[in-house]
């Protein structure tokens, strides 16, 4: 009962009427247009309990039909804005693993996203019965969403400027959904109607079968009479007259039952009966609420050991989800902050640690060591001055002559002085490579 009272109270307050009282509501200053459709001039005195001093209102009272009709062309569109909290650095930490980085600065910019709440009133008419179903559907990005309920949120009115008209919604979606939601109830109604329709169809079929049967029987009996007449001993003249009469009667009867005409008539009445037992479903959009909520574009500056990295992200205040932090290598969304030695934001799949312990990503990773195939970071990579290939620190040697880096492959050790140098600069004596100095010494000894 208090629901009814609240509705009445709320409605008349919205109408700018003066609403006085608690148990009994006295409504004053009723607008003329409402008085006209209610058929009664104000003030009204409504009671919600029997024997109270006022017009008793129950859920089936005419007043509610009038209110419903009055509101039919009102509240068609509602623009709302969800009241949601902005994100703080602490909140951010719940969504992103900082991996030892600190937030140095956050720049925020907000845009609106929209959810459409469509409230449909579906009326099912069959025979002289009506059923009404109210369905609320939520649509986001032209997709029906199930896990949202406006009642769970605080809202404030939104303005037209905050709503961007994003083109038409695909109404097939709600249409299909409503069909789905009605499916079970329709099956029940169909079953109920079938019982009645089958009974009526039986009546019509029986009627036309009987009509046809009666006429056929009459034709048959006339034919029997005709046959008997032929075998009778009456005089020829009388016989002829009677015979003609009977034949005429047969023609008349045949015309009367004209099978095609009867069938056509029967079909017409069967279709009519089916139409009488049809179900009419009409769904109307009662209200379209556009709910907007902010999507924050964040520009977060992370800091660690004097290294700064700016990371862009999007924070959906409704779902409380951080989006669009992506690995700069593979573009996949990430939920932690990993920054490589070259200041790239990356995911675990795109990063690795070099033997020097630095994080390297596929972007800054120059190559693998030509000799040991080990991945080598920028700072650990050396170029062999001989073969011009990348080599890791452990495979890099220094030519004692040129003092340049050479790889293990290009280097060799002088068997004489045991110093390491480039093969190319060494000279061969009996399959052994000697550094130029030792080579000279050996060759001089041979001369002398």
């Amino acid at each position, binding site marked *: 009962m208090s629901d*009814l009272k609240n*509705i009445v109270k709320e*409605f008349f307050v919205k109408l700018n009427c003066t609403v006085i009282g608690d148990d009994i509501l006295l409504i004053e200053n009723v607008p003329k247009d409402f008085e006209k459709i209610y058929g009664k001039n104000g003030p009204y005195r409504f009671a919600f309990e029997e024997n109270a001093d006022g017009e008793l209102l129950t859920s089936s009272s005419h007043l509610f*039909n009038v209110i419903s009709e009055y509101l039919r062309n009102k509240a068609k569109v509602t623009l709302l804005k969800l009241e949601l909290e902005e994100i703080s650095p602490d909140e951010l930490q719940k969504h992103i693993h900082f991996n030892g980085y600190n937030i140095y600065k956050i720049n925020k910019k907000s845009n609106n996203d929209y959810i459409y709440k469509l409230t449909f009133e579906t009326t099912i008419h069959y025979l002289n019965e009506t059923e009404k179903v109210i369905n609320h559907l939520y649509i986001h990005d032209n997709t029906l969403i199930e896990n949202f309920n406006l009642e769970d949120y605080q809202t404030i009115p939104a303005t037209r400027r905050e709503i961007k008209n994003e083109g038409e919604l695909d109404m097939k979606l709600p249409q299909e959904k409503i069909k789905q939601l009605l499916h079970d109830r329709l099956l029940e109604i169909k079953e109920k109607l079938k019982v009645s329709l089958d009974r009526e169809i039986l*009546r019509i079929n029986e009627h036309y079968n009987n009509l046809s049967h009666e006429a056929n029987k009459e034709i048959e009996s006339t034919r029997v009479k005709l046959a008997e007449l032929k075998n009778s001993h009456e005089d020829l003249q009388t016989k002829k007259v009677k015979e003609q009469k009977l034949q005429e009667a047969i023609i008349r009867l045949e015309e009367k039952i004209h099978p095609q005409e009867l069938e056509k008539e029967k079909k017409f009445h069967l279709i009519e009966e089916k139409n009488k037992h049809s179900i009419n479903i009409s769904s109307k959009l009662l209200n379209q609420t556009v709910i907007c909520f902010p999507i924050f574009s964040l520009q977060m500056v992370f800091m660690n050991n004097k290294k700064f990295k700016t990371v862009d992200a999007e924070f959906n205040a409704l779902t409380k989800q951080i989006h669009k932090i992506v690995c700069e290598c593979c573009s996949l969304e990430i939920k932690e902050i990993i920054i490589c030695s070259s200041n790239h934001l990356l995911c675990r799949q795109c990063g690795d640690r070099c033997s020097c312990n630095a994080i390297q990503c596929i972007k800054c990773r120059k190559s693998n060591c030509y000799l040991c195939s080990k991945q080598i970071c920028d700072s650990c990579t050396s170029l062999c001055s001989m073969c011009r290939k990348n080599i890791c620190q452990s495979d890099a040697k220094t030519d004692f002559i040129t003092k340049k880096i050479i790889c293990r492959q290009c280097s060799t050790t002088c068997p004489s002085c045991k110093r390491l140098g480039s093969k190319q600069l060494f000279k061969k004596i009996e399959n052994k490579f000697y550094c130029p100095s030792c080579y000279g010494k050996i060759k001089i000894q041979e001369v002398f």
Partner: protein
Amino acid sequence: MTEEIIINESFDIEMSNLEVDDFNSRELMELKIKVSELVTDNVINKLISYPKIKNNLTYDLPYQRDGALRILRDFNCNALLADEVGLGKTITTGMVIKELIERGFAKKILILTPPSLVDQWVAELDDKFDISFNIIENEDDWDVSDFAIASIDRVKGYDLESRQFRHKKVHDISWDLLIVDEAHKLKDRLSMRTKFVDKIQKKRFLILTATPFQNDLVELYNLLNLLKKGHLGTLQAFRKNFLERGNKRKPLNHEVLKRKLREVMVRRKRSETTVEYMQRVPKTISVDLTDEEKIIYEEIQNMIKSNYFLSSGMQINGKLAIYAILPKITSSSKSAMESLQRIIDNQDKYHKRTITHAQKILDAYAVLKTDSKIETLIKLIRDIFRQDRNQKILIYTKHPTTLFYIIEKLKPTGLSIVPFTGASTREEKTAIIDEFKNRADIMISTETGCEGLNFQFCNNLINYDLPWNPMSVEQRIGRIDRIGQKRNMNIYSLATKGTMEEYVVDLIINKMCCVGLIIGELPIILFNLGLDGNGNNGVNKIEEMIMNHFIDSKNNLEIFSKGIKEIETIIQQGIQSYSEYKINTSELIDHE
């Protein structure tokens, strides 16, 4: 065999345009949805539309509401409404229509009525139920009429050449509700009228008649077979099960037949209601003309019958032409003078001889000292008020000129008078009724002026002049002969002594409108006689018959009276046959 149920779906996806629509608060939106959820009346247990219309109805008659509810709830509007005449079948049906529309069951409605009732239906549905019905005049009208009303006689026409109904479009439409008024005319199952109705696709079918059969129970069978095929079996089975051999009116298995009838019929008798019906007391008031007036009267008749020429020399004796001038000239001296002056002023149109004749009469009027008709009226009014000063009088005339003339002449009496002409809004009409009911003594109106108004608080009606169309007179009387009339009604009609007026008044008032019929019965009788609706010249058939006799009589009162007698005989036969109708119907369906 199980049939598949047809499902019709409609999806109103009209999205509101954010650019132009007003935006409403969340509270209002939630309120709207809450109320929508609350208003779910699955089964029809009450008339939700009644509060909307009750202020438009003069009386709250519970049996009318109950009838509408039964038709809706128990019969899903597939029924025969056979209430006795005078109980307001139109109102009950209006309630059914309103409720079906209000609940969203009916979007296409067709009403088929006798020709004379088309306008009345339209007016009642508009005034009392705020539903606007479109009158079907030609075949194209079907395309634009969701709520259509048609004279059954007009639309049932069959084209023998194409072997199709002329208004075949009606058969292509699926109607949510079909109503046939005075449906006893569908008693002949082989008639074109019946076939026309049977071919209409309808979801709901309401048949209205106070007399579902006349002489033969087969008529009742035909009517119910039209409503519900096979409800009473085949005709052969019906004859075998329900008809006593040799007596077409006496049923066998009376109780079984009654039970079958109850399954499809709503029938209430006047005795079951609290409605009181008062008598119409006809009073012809003779107007004794002075010698001078007699001469003028005769001169006028002479002019119309033998001296009425166009400038070309062609005599104007067509019924329509006479119809146009005769009533004006006989209505009052003032309207006669106005008509004569118009002839004189139209020298191009009328022949010199006619103009001279008109001028001669006009000159005679100019020197006339007495207007016996208006004096008779004043005397009559005085007599009525002498009996009871608190009475009200409703005076009718066909012509506004006469109306204002009467007002002018009644001014010296000091009586309070309300004039009423032309169409008015409902609010204006309400104000006029209020004025007449609470302050004025007399209301003077043209019959078209106060169509649809109720003056049951007044029981004196004066026909200053009389239309020759009995239905117009019935309409006049109908304003005071309504539910709520507490006294017998005095129907005064002024008739010039020794003229054809006396015979016309006698026929229309004494033999038709005041013979003890209940309001609504005369149209049925005329309809049954085929005298309902328009004649060949576009006037009512009875009117046309009187007109023919007027022309044929050539000023001979004896010949004219014979002609009137012939009409009287036809009407009496119609009344007789209708009475039998009522008795037979009552014997079968009212017998306890």
